[in-house]
């Protein structure tokens, strides 16, 4: 390709990106526009008279939901890794009995429609008086991430040579000790990837949030936004400011941990 054609291709690529990302730009734009410019008959393409009023409103009414989402998501990461790390170790390194069946069960579990889970989990949570409890949300959200985490950790830990584990065993380390001090540090990238995606899944969850919380102050941010639109239909700049704030943790994670995501995902797919 000539240089001219290559730059023309870049221009086309930029155009595609602009179209695909337009809704996100439009959200940021609306979050900064004063309410008067949001209802005009002409679109305001740029936030010339930017205001942070929307963010002030959003923070005062949605700040609590953001916190709820934050600790529910962190709890989900912990719960997911607690189940997935030993399971992946047992599957990949110790070749535990029944392992293949477990992998199959997890592949199928990923495909159960969420609404079915919500039905069953609601009844269970109600019987255990866990409606509106963050614990119920953590456990329900973990069903979104445990299969993925086990599968990606399993794929990674299989690439750790058996000699590493055997050397530790000869030195007298128990299986648990080997997992904690040898396998975990070596699998750091895969663990970070699994944890990161667990966080993203839990942060984005809406179905479990809306079914397992009836009291508004216990709802996560996704449910907060949903009810906020219902109640403040015309207040688009506060709604959009809430949306931007709900995207911030995702953006931060991706920037800070991008290296680990890439490392973890390629480790899970390229090596064999």
């Amino acid at each position, binding site marked *: 390709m000539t240089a001219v054609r290559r730059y023309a291709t870049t221009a086309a690529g930029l155009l595609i990106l602009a179209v695909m990302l337009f809704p996100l730009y439009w959200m940021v734009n609306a979050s900064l526009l004063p309410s008067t410019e949001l*209802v005009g008959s002409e679109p305001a393409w740029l936030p010339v008279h930017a205001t942070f009023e929307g963010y002030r409103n959003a923070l005062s009414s949605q700040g609590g939901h953001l916190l709820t989402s934050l600790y529910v998501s962190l709890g989900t990461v912990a719960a997911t890794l607690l189940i997935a790390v030993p399971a992946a170790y047992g599957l990949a390194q110790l070749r535990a009995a029944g392992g293949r069946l477990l992998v199959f069960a997890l592949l199928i579990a990923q495909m159960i429609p969420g609404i079915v889970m919500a039905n069953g989990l609601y009844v269970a949570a109600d019987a255990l008086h866990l409606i509106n409890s963050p614990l119920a949300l953590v456990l329900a959200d973990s069903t979104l991430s445990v299969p*993925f985490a086990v599968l990606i950790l399993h*794929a990674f830990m299989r690439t750790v040579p058996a000699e590493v584990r055997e050397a530790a065993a000869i030195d007298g380390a128990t299986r648990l000790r080997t997992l904690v001090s040898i396998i975990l540090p070596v699998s750091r990238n895969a663990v970070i990837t699994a944890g990161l*995606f667990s966080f993203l899944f839990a942060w984005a969850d*809406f179905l479990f949030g809306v079914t397992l919380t009836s009291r508004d102050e216990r709802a996560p941010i996704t449910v907060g936004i949903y009810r906020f639109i219902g109640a403040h239909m015309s207040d688009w700049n506060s709604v959009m400011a809430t949306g931007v704030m709900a995207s911030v943790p995702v953006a931060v994670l991706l920037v800070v941990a991008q290296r680990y995501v890439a490392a973890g995902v390629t480790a899970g797919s390229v090596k064999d």
Partner: protein
Amino acid sequence: MMAETIPGAAAPAGAVRVGRRVGRRAGLHVGRHGGRSAGARRSRGGTGWAAFGFIAPAWLYVAAFYVYPLAANVRMSFQDYTVTSFFTGRAPFVGWRNYEAVWQDPAFAATVANTVLFTVGSLLFQFGAGLALAVFFQRRFPLGGLLRSLLLVPWLLPLVVSGTAWRWIMETDSGVLNQALMQVHLIDRPIPWLASTSVSLLSVTLVNIWVGVPFNMVILYGGLQGIPAHLYEAAALDGAGAWRRFRHITLPLLRPVTAVVLTLGLIYTLKVFDVIMVLTQGGPADSSQTLTTFAYDLSFQRLTFGHGAVVGNLLIVVAVVFAFVYLRATRDGEGRAAA
């Protein structure tokens, strides 16, 4: 992840790759790995049962958080669950009456039709656009890699957030979509994208296509990278043009990946909940209701959990059928690749 995934909606690319690897491991090279593992076991002097302790929590987890809700859902579909059931703890068994009630629900037939249109429309255009973008990004050009990774951003945001942005874009009077279409004189008066019974399904489908394109692009891009470049060079030497190379090399060699993308896409599209809830709540007048939002409506809005469970069971059956199609597709794909 990929959509409901991530989003819930969508599981990341890794999931598919890992899934395929696991499938291959379980299916095709059993002999080789099995032999090695037996040796390893002997050398350690233990058995797989001693290691079972590490995977036991995961088994308990599967039982408590997948098998139990699934079984509870099946049982509920034969019970008369009402608001009082939650106070008294009593829900009498009523045989197939819930199934009859759902079958006779005036919204049921339209909901099934909506689900089919929504799913087929989403899959077709997500796949088409995803493939076009994957082919486009195969070219080498300045900033290509950066632009490709930036395309993934919408896919990683919570669907409620991007759905909210779309709801604002599609507002009838102050939404930018109508304003822009009127400025270029494509339409005379605003289209009520989300408020009209005749376009609401189209609108939620369009947004769902937007959601799914990045996922399709990532997986198909990976598939394209796996096609050896020398095949294209040989075909070009034989005088095959770009279209014939695409038609006779790209498409056939992409078939295993295509099967994976489409079946996973189907399973995710059936689960779509957030997008529809934020945009239309399945309305107006059930015009954008799909089986998933219908099940939610029956259980959590009308509080007839037995009816919701019936629709849930229907979704399970469809998902299980396609889950097996998916597992078979991944195995076939690996088989062909290995052959």
